[in-house]
């Protein structure tokens, strides 16, 4: 059964979209990642225009992260103070990102930028995850090794505008979360991702937040960054397809619940290796598309009325 997507101005099989949303929701249920970083490239593979894929993914991320953040909020695992500082940076970053996006679209380089950004990011992420999970599977990690010092002083702690974050038990410069938020905001706007896969490691290793509050705080601020990207993309580029986002979300709701249950059945490092291979496969496909001789070097775009 086909469904007509009004902003993408194309027909897509509704079951393909539901499956796609379901698969991405399943992954987020299993691995606890947002899944936006897989959704955008998959939408591009099935023929949705790059710009619409990015903007509608951001819209889908809003819904997916509301569901996730609520679960963490009920357990009290959100550092609201940190989230607000990250958000201030995030709003500025998403505004900058959407302007960059509009500029790239005008000069005809948006498709290249999105594909390239995804290839680099997914390639790096996939390799790191694969290395980490294979180490874990080979049990090369001795027990107790790799435990971090509770507090390490680097030049980052010498920065001005220090702030106390009670929930995270941190006393660090506000510039750190501000610039982290800004960077992830730009990523979110250009790539349509929530940015959790950058935000989570940065919160742990760069800011030094306790692991328990990281996912909730990350998800909570992603809601608002993705929301601001959605609104800005709608205004600046008219590229948000709400019908597409809704179908993806409906699939995602079912997928996430199945994924959560499935996730408890499998061993962690095997799951992570699987995800790593999946991420690398998507990156490889993007690299091939960028480097192989295109079937037709000419492409056509019809700017909207």
């Amino acid at each position, binding site marked *: 059964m086909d469904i007509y997507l*009004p902003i993408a101005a194309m*027909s897509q099989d509704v079951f393909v979209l539901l499956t796609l949303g379901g698969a991405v929701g399943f992954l987020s249920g299993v691995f606890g990642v947002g899944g936006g970083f897989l959704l955008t490239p998959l939408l591009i593979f099935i023929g949705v225009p790059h710009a619409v894929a990015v903007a509608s993914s951001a819209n889908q991320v809003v819904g997916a992260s509301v569901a996730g953040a609520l679960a963490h909020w009920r357990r009290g695992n959100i550092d609201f103070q940190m989230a607000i500082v990250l958000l201030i940076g995030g709003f500025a970053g998403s505004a900058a990102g959407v302007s960059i996006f509009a500029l790239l679209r005008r000069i005809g380089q948006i498709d290249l930028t999105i594909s390239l950004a995804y290839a680099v990011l997914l390639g790096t992420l996939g390799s790191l995850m694969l290395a980490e999970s294979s180490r874990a599977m080979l049990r090369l990690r001795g027990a107790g090794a790799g435990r971090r010092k509770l507090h390490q002083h680097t030049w980052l702690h010498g920065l001005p505008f220090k702030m106390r974050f009670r929930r995270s038990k941190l006393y660090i410069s506000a510039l750190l979360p501000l610039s982290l938020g800004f960077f992830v905001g730009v990523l979110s706007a250009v790539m349509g991702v929530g940015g959790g896969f950058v935000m989570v490691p940065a919160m742990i290793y760069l800011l030094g937040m306790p692991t328990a509050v990281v996912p909730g705080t990350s998800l909570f601020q992603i809601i608002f960054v993705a929301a601001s990207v*959605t609104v800005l993309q709608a205004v600046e580029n008219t590229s948000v397809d709400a*019908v597409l986002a809704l179908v993806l979300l409906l699939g995602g709701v079912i997928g996430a619940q199945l994924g959560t249950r499935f996730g408890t059945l499998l061993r962690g490092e095997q799951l992570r290796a699987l995800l790593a291979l999946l991420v690398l496969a998507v990156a490889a496909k993007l690299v091939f598309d960028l480097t192989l001789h295109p079937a037709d*070097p000419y492409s056509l775009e*019809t700017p*909207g009325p």
Partner: protein
Amino acid sequence: MRQALLLLLLLWPGSAGAAEPLIADLTSHFVAITTGFTGADVVLFGATDAPSDVIVVVRGPIRDAVVRRKSKVAGLWMNTREVTFTGVPSYYAVYSTRPLDEIMPPAMRTLHDIGLANLRLGVGRPDRSAQEAALFRDALIRQRRQQGLYAEATGGFNVLNGELFHLTLAFPAAVPTGNYTVQIFLVRGQRIVAAQTSPLYISQAGIDAEVDDFARRSALGYGFAAVAMAALVGWLSSLPFRHA
């Protein structure tokens, strides 16, 4: 349905064999793109006063089109050259009873803008050499043909008695919306003896039209509504697990 229409035409006072050399019309002047839209057929039917050739030209709304060419830069294929054509029909299809070059001399086809080879595109910007401009023009037509938005077809006419005909105009799912014109030319002895133009309007309808209209007319409100919709679905989906 089609038979009934043809019968109606046959009985029409002054149709076949009367003063009018050509009478033709569409079964519908409106195509609605709704949620399940996968393309649409519109039937053109007509009568001529004697056996002759018919050419039908369907033209969609005029838009700009940007054609870009990729070349390899540092191992990556990226867009390096572009030409913007203004005044490009977003849809263009020609149907003829026999191949165009057998029916009509080239000068006449150029004059009436009939056939993809004679398709009039607006000026290309920026200025390129005639050779390069031609390559970009060809690329535009090639891409549109692949999308099913440009077509040239011979045959496809159902002819009765040599004087009554009907033809199915097939529009693909990706058909652009707006005002279309359907021109019908009656050709005899390499000359156009009669012509008629019929309007056709293709528009989104129902929920899709409202979403599209909302997104363009009040982009800010649409953005907030899209966010609210997503947040609501997210919240609802977390409800059954509240006590888990």
